[in-house]
């Protein structure tokens, strides 16, 4: 018992529960003393749940110990930067300072939460396979659908956190991130947030979709709505702090000779992502906080009766949530740009253009938010400027696609194609479909028809799979040997790919097809007269096939950890610095620091080198 309690994660959760109960007790006590009502439909009032949730988050962090060094600093103590992790699995449950451990913590958490989010999707997908309500009530359907959305967004944020944390210090030749404690903190606050997020299902659920538009989200008499807002608020902070850390790392900790245009392209993508995460995230936090306060204190920000404006919420919300989709996809596109040259054995075509296109997408991304609101009743004269700015995003995105095509052109790709490359090419195609189905939504006139339909659902699943899922899988297959010293099984990897990709195309194309014909988003059931049932049945089958393919992936991952082919060398014959040292990566990264002496992607140029390691430490 004592042994279990000594694991920081367990200790944190115990403290979290205690904090929640204490917080509830305090609020109930105060309300009772003031003569206000203290009980509510969910045992106690929302005030108690929110305060308890807030306090529980703090107590989790204290109990877990991730803030231990900070407390020491506040007391004027000096702590060592040379932090040694215990060998073995226990370090993954504690506040490690090693960016590689944190990267793996992020990645594994993302994979676990992905199972949860995927299961939600399978449940409501099954419900949709037939007309009429079979085994879910509409309210349960709405909750599952909303949870699927927000849980998958958390998965993506965790996944890119994993990729950026693990890779960026290695790629720039740093021994760690700029702020290792902050890094650990940014990961661990996601854990209590995930607890609140999932617990909202037990507290009445959320029926507003992940967008949580008021007045609906403010009127719904469900505490789950509040824990959902609280959870997203906390995850937002994780995102902000992660972005801050990454920018500082890249700006301050690059190896000698690594000028801006000699950075690996993934680093450029991470910078673009982090700039958005650092700044815009605050506005989803603020908008959700305002709804929370509207519910708690009756502040009428979005309540027209009190002079509020529901459309203001949408502006604040989308000011983050549109750039957020670039947060989700840019690292994935960076992975694509990173892997294509390695497998095509050619330089990355137009390196500078690709690097600049990432920044371009990020910056233009700040000016396009209102394209989510063409039908919202906002000022009508805003619609056309936002259409122009949104369509402009197509230009830097196009640069990426053309440059990728030119990189692959005349490249010598192995046959059979290695699994990471399969997923990279898959990412290009899926994201291409996602990208091309974007302009019709950006164009006001066609968007009047397409907005809030299943067409949109198909479109953004394409962008999210092409921009995140496929590259994420590619990255996992590609860097698995770096992290573990073993390779993943190629056959299972190919089964994974060939099961997932066709099913995925069937699913999203089917979604778009019925969407165009009048299938709305976020509906628990559909009008039998519209004749969508056969398509929905096919979509459900496709959904289950995707789940099956991911199951194959998990089997591969777990068996390869123990029994994978041993691979300590430069498995993919890459020029990148992390592959020039033996796998798995040593605890403090490079034993000898390296200096950048050439271009990162000069494949095919005899005798050229990207990095050179110092002889002495």
């Amino acid at each position: 018992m004592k042994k279990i309690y000594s694991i920081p994660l367990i200790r944190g959760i115990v403290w979290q529960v205690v904090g929640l109960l204490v917080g509830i007790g305090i609020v109930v006590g105060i309300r009772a003393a003031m003569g206000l009502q203290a009980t509510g439909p969910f045992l106690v009032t929302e005030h108690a749940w929110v305060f308890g949730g807030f306090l529980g988050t703090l107590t989790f962090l204290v109990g877990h110990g991730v803030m231990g060094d900070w407390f020491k600093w506040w007391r004027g103590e000096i702590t060592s930067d040379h932090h040694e992790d215990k060998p073995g699995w226990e370090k993954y449950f504690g506040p490690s300072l090693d960016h590689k451990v944190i990267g793996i913590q992020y990645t594994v958490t993302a994979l676990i939460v992905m199972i949860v989010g995927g299961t939600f999707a399978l449940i409501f997908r099954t419900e949709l396979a037939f007309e009429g309500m079979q085994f879910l009530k509409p309210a349960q359907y709405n909750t599952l659908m909303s949870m699927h959305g927000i849980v998958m967004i958390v998965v993506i944020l965790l996944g890119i956190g994993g990729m950026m944390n693990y890779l960026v210090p290695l790629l720039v030749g740093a021994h760690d991130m700029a702020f290792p404690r902050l890094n650990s903190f940014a990961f661990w606050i996601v854990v209590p947030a995930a607890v609140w997020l999932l617990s909202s299902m037990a507290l009445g659920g959320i029926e507003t979709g992940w967008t949580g538009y008021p007045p609906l989200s403010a009127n719904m008499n469900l505490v789950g709505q509040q824990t959902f807002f609280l959870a997203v608020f906390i995850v937002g902070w994780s995102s902000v702090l992660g972005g801050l850390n990454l920018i500082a790392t890249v700006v301050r900790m690059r190896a000698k000779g690594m000028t801006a245009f000699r950075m690996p392209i993934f680093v450029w993508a991470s910078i673009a992502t982090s700039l958005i995460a650092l700044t815009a995230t605050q506005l989803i936090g603020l908008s959700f906080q305002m709804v929370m306060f509207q519910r708690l204190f009756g502040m009428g920000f979005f309540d027209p009766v009190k002079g509020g404006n529901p459309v203001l919420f949408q502006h604040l919300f989308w000011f983050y949530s549109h750039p957020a989709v670039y947060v989700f996809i840019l690292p994935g596109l960076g992975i694509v740009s990173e892997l294509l040259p390695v497998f095509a054995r050619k330089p990355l075509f137009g390196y500078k253009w690709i690097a600049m296109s990432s920044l371009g997408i990020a910056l233009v991304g700040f000016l396009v938010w209102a394209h989510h609101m063409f039908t919202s009743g906002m000022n009508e004269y805003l619609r056309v400027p936002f259409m122009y700015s949104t369509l402009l995003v197509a230009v830097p995105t196009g640069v990426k696609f053309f440059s990728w095509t030119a990189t692959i052109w005349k490249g010598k790709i192995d046959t059979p194609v290695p699994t990471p490359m399969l997923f990279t090419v898959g990412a290009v195609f899926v994201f291409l479909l996602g990208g091309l189905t974007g302009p019709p939504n950006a164009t006001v006139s066609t968007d009047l028809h397409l907005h809030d339909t299943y067409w949109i659902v198909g479109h953004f699943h394409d962008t999210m799979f092409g921009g995140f899922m496929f590259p994420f899988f590619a990255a996992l297959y590609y860097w698995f040997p770096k992290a573990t010293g073993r390779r993943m099984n190629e056959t299972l990897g190919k089964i994974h790919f060939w099961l997932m990709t066709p099913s995925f195309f069937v699913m999203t194309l089917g979604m778009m097809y019925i969407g165009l014909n009048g299938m709305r988003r976020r509906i628990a059931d559909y009008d039998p007269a519209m004749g969508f049932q056969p398509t929905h049945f096919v979509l459900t089958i496709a959904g289950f096939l995707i789940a099956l393919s991911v199951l194959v992936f998990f089997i591969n991952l777990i068996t390869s950890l123990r029994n994978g082919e041993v691979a300590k060398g430069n498995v993919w014959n890459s020029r990148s610095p992390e592959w020039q040292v033996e796998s798995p990566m040593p605890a403090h990264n490079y034993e000898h620091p390296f200096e950048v002496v050439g271009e990162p992607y000069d494949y095919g140029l005899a005798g050229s080198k990207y990095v050179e390691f110092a002889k002495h430490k």
Partner: protein
Amino acid sequence: MIHIVVVGILVIVFAVLTYVGVNSVDLMPVQASAQAVPIDWMWNWQVIAISFLFALIMVPIFYSMIVFRRKKGDTSDAEHIEGNTPLEIAWTVVPLIIVVAFAYMGAYSLGESRRITDTNAMVVKVKAQQFSWTYEYPQGFASSELHLPVWKQVILKMEAVDVIHSFWVPEFRVKQDVVPGRVTEYRITPMLEGAYKVRCAELCGSNHAFMEGPVIVSSQADYDTWVAEQIEIASAATPEGRGRKLVTENGCLGCHSITPQPGPSAPSWFGLFGSQVTLADGSTVTADEAFITESILDPAVKEVEGYSPTVMKPFTFTTEELADIIAYIKSLK
């Protein structure tokens, strides 16, 4: 060079095949409004662009992966091509021009779909609430059905009572959110007679999926007949008539059916009065005046089996109004 020519031909063939293939499927519902015409025109150009660009990227990648794949025994790297600035500039500038052209076309088609053809268009007031649509006609009656004469431009002035809804008739193409605290406008010219449905396109609560209502486009003569009927019903002085008017105006019929077939989100009223109703806890209760009154004023007290009571918000009516409503429910059998 030969490769470029082959790929060029393949791109065009593939683009044409994609476009033809996509168009052979019925992608859009019927065009039932004049506003749908410019929107579908724009859509067609989008499909052409999508088909071409999809082919333009996919074909070279596949071609290269097949034709230039690594041959047996070859261990060398590929040709060292770092980039090509004129090419990069070309594929930045050309898409930029195309994008601006598309945005211009988008603005043009938007303008066309908003063209005012009748400055004296009929105004119908729309009230959206969880989970029903109610229409107030200029002739002075309310209905839960939207009847429109064909080829007449109509303005819907829409207001939401509780949360955000969105007015969408897929066959009309145009969609407009209905926001509490403000009036949004929806200008439409139906051009094809038929029965359609308005479908709420903004998640508005538990029964959002079922927030649909009939939209009937008919000839002017049929429309006039219907209006005359409605005026007659609205002026009815019987309790049942007043009750019918009340339940229509308050949106009750958005969820409650008046036929033996119950809707998905609320019990049917057909034959309700005097019947035995099974509650969620398994007990039964007779649907008498007291039960119906309580279920209107405080729906959460007695939960009917199979339906969630939190879906319906409490209503307030005067005693006379309640009597009229119950009289109407009594008449349904």
